[in-house]
């Protein structure tokens, strides 16, 4: 993995650099920001997160499992209470709902981990602790031939530090 890391103090400089990097297609761009910013989302033009599908599938599976567990266990140990049916779907809605929430939420977290590619054993190249503090970073993964033009572009938009990494 080779590329150029630009270090920005200002948000708008970083956003301008991202926009131009995308236009010129100099390489894959990874942006580091201490807090989520809509301006960066718009500049990166990333697709919507698929985490919602994890929530939907996990939640529906959990709901089905919650109902199934209560109905199956009631039939396996059939005690009549208050003259009610052995499989009473109304009280079992509580289990359907609770397990829907439980599995749906845990699936959402799984979706976050899978899509964000965490846990990560190393911080890999292109990261700097200052990016969690207050500064913005742009990592441009490109061939050595494009290093010079990427560096020039980053500096033009106000990068205070540009370095090549591999």
């Amino acid at each position, binding site marked *: 993995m080779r590329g150029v890391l630009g270090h920005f103090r200002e*948000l708008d400089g970083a956003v301008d650099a991202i926009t131009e990097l995308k236009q010129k297609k100099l390489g894959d761009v990874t942006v580091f920001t201490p807090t989520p910013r809509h301006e960066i989302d718009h500049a990166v033009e990333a697709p919507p*997160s698929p985490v919602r599908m994890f929530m939907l599938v996990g939640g529906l599976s959990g709901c089905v499992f919650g109902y199934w567990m209560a109905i199956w266990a*009631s039939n396996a140990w059939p005690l009549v209470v208050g003259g009610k049916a052995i499989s009473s779907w109304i009280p079992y809605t509580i289990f359907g709902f609770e397990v829907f929430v439980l599995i749906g939420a845990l699936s959402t977290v799984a979706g976050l981990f899978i899509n964000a590619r965490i846990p990560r054993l190393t911080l890999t190249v292109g990261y700097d602790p200052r990016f969690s*503090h207050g500064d913005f970073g742009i990592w441009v993964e490109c061939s050595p031939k494009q290093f010079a033009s990427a560096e020039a572009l980053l500096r033009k938009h106000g990068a205070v530090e540009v370095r090549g990494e591999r």
Partner: protein
Amino acid sequence: MATIASEPRRPNIASANVQLPAVTTYEQVDDEIIATLRPTKAWFAALFTAVICLMIGISAWMYQINQGLGVAGYNPPVMCGVYIVSFVFWVGIGHAGTLISAILYLFRAGFRTTIYRAAEAMTVFAVMTAGLFPILHLGRPWKFFWLIPYPNWRLLWPQFKSPLVWDVFAISTYLTISTTFLFVGLIPDIAVLRDREKNPTRRALLAFLSFGWRNSEREWRHFARAYLFLAAVSTPLVLSVHSVVSFDFAMALTPGWHTTIFPPYFVAGAIFSGIGMVFTIIIPIRKWFHLEHYVTLNHLDAAAKLCLTTSLIVGCAYMVEFFIAWYGGVQAEQDFFWNRVFGQWWWAAWIMLTCNMILPLSLFSQKLRRNPAWLWMLSITINIGMWFERFVIVVPSLSHEYEPWQWTTYAPTWVDYSILLGSFGWFFMWFLLFVKQLPIIAISEVKEIVPPRLKRLHGHTPETADDFEPEIPGTH
């Protein structure tokens, strides 16, 4: 800081202003919030006190296990006492955290930003505390796992039509989701701590807990979506948990319990008591950690309005209970409510009514809503009042059922009081450990409302700067 001391009273839309005028840079946020993690003598003293209270509670429980449940003051048919009262109380305390972090997040209520982490941690520790009480209430506490549906060679399963099994699912789901919500929100902040940490051992531990978080746009994008969906599923969960707890009572035919108003009444009461506990915790933290410019008077003002609203709902529920008892025409129900308010339990009922209905009316005054000392004192009375609300629900009903020969009394013993004290020790021990290990204010979310550095401030290319005005919640 001078701006805080002279912060003027604003028009009665103060909650809309969630800006932090005394916080100007991302670095300031990191530095000031991380500075709160340094232990102090006062913190050690508070932790020592909490552990002593916990030890007293554990000793009393060991004594109860040795001697039997009779030492806990139960007097048939009053077989639910301080333990069940405290269970409902602590579950209620645990409601404000998810309300503030999830429901107010969905409603984009900006004032939640600086108080939600404390409220979320409070929720997790309160539910951990609540979960102990049904076990304490068991004659054979080591058999508690029988309520969990696990495969066993006798092919026995719990009774899924029992509200007690509903409780097990509701509380365990709530604890799991609250903990998950808290931890997911902490990941970016743990990464901030990791990047600032000098001690290699502690740094390695923080690196492990942060899962290698790098603050990349990709991570933030999925994080924001996951957080939104966690908030979306936590919202009905908050409303369901105390509804399910209320079914423990409402499913019985006991006078005072068998009523359909219980689910919304319990949920409103839970949120009310939880906000009371948030004030109890956040106001001293604000003062001792010098965070007045983060948890501003505007934030306290907005939270106080929420407190007042839930107090009015709870008060309305009290009145509806009395009305339905009169309007329903059931003699046992009418006698019971008369006995609750003017008879045997008048003192408990009037503590409840005074603390939960009358004193919170003071929050109609903007001056008092913006007075942290008053809010803190009021929060203590709300905590007391809400504990007595649960006492009034649980004990008088059992002591005054249908048949006069069943009527009896109930008095907690030193074992009950010791275990109640121990529960506060348990709760505050965990909370105190939390506040010195992890940020009590969400660093990354506070940064969202701090204006970022822009070129125009540094004089590079001012013509593009207007496009990057920060979006401040509450100003649209």
